[in-house]
């Protein structure tokens, strides 16, 4: 679930499972000596939140059903989450994840070294003064020299023509 995108359960299930799956993963990391107390705190917090979400859904269903039964004058029955929709959502999730994995393998098989996106074109080093477009406030002129400045100086000393404005 990302802000601006609608969600209908698949993403919710995916992240709840991710939170729960982090526990055995962290356990393996602990056995291998690659875990830390801080990592366990984070994993524990996420897993607890995921369990609380499942519990809240379960309680809401139980409360909703009890209310409906009471209004209808029927005998109260203990009901839990309907398993079929949850299992169906889980099946869809597994299918989606498996399909993307298969797509990755197919792409790797067809083109061993696939170029992801066209190679980016690096920008030139910084220009320090373009009078035509820049208005400087004297108090905030940078007085420090950074690695970028050092690189520019090196280029200048080497005779390279760093682009300069105005």
């Amino acid at each position, binding site marked *: 679930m990302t802000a601006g995108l609608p969600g209908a359960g698949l993403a919710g299930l995916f992240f709840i499972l991710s939170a729960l799956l982090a526990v055995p993963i962290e356990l393996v990391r602990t056995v291998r000596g690659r875990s830390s107390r801080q990592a366990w705190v984070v994993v524990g917090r996420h897993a607890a939140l995921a369990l609380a979400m499942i519990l809240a859904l379960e309680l809401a269903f139980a409360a909703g059903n009890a209310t409906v039964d009471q209004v209808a004058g029927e005998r109260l029955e203990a009901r839990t989450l309907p398993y079929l929709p949850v299992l169906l959502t889980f099946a869809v999730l597994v299918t989606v994840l498996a399909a993307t994995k298969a797509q990755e393998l197919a*792409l790797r098989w067809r083109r061993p070294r696939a170029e992801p*996106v066209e190679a980016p074109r690096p920008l030139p080093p910084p220009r*320090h003064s373009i009078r035509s*477009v820049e208005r400087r406030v004297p108090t905030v002129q940078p007085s420090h020299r950074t690695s970028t400045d050092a690189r520019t100086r090196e280029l200048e000393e080497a005779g390279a023509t760093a682009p300069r404005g105005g």
Partner: protein
Amino acid sequence: MAYSITPQSRQSTQAARRRSQWQRAKTRATDAFALTAIVPAFDEAETVADTVRSLQDQTLAPVDILVVDDCSTDDTGAVAEAAGARVVRPPANTGSKAGAQTFALQFVTTEFVMALDADTTLAPDAVERLFRVFSDPEVGAASGSVLPRRVRSVWERGRYVEYLLAFSFFKQIQDHYGKPLISSGCFSLYRTEVVRDGGGWSDRTTAEDMDLTWSFYQRGWKVRFVPEAVCYPIEPYNIDLLRKQLRRWSHGFVQNVKLHWRGVLGLGYLRSSVAVAFWDSAIASIAYLFAIPLLAVLVSPDYWLAYVVDSPVVLVPVLVGARKRGETWRALASFPAYFPLRVANAVMLLRALVLELVLRRPLLVYEKGH
């Protein structure tokens, strides 16, 4: 002799004091941390001064605040300059936030650069908290939590709940697996050379932040999410601004999936997140707009409950996030607004899917909303 301070002189005194404090903070910061803040701005005279001030008030302040006055028709440049920022202006309007930020990149001489929207303010320790993750030399970008500065209208309230949900749970899980879906464009910090080597912020999609994040991953850089670093943008308060923002986000998401899908396929957890988000968005949109109403009318009115059936799942992380901030009642009062916003998201995403993938009519114009 007693004399009174007029509001104007008090303001200028405060501004001078703030600038002086900023100068001292800059001097402290320069040794270990050289950061330039880029603030792209088009007609942001009302909000840009607050943004500049919140940068100056940081516990770890940027040494340079660069406001890109993208040929505004109001006093954005003058206001920013009066607040103490350095103002640059491109020869012509760049047409997008990405264009304005990339234009400013040529003036950046610091090791780190941050992008901050001109309608966004920061918690005083936001930059410092974000900067800590850069002790890992493999981290190329980092972003923090986002919360609306104003929570009044139904759309702002809906977004408030949506952000609490996303930043209290989902994004933290993504970060645990090392692949946050996006380093939010309204407030992110980057290694300057990494941004520059990638050609700056690209305007080939309408979601330049998602494009840059996924490009970073493909180039082997880590991206981190720091929930404690908080920024406060002004979110759309009416349907017109919301429509513009959602249009940009929805088209941007689809455009990025189209552009990066081959590269993303090899990135494990990100591949799964994107696949699930894409599938869920499409199916959720169809369910909200067609399947649920049809089933409710034709089969049983009980199906109307499908719109709110996941409320408990949403409410738990929202209340946990709100409680930490002492905003439990605000979150509870805002909760109903989440559902109309979700339907609005569905409408705009389905529209974007149809236009981008079926009709092949991509969104090419960057429409400024919030």
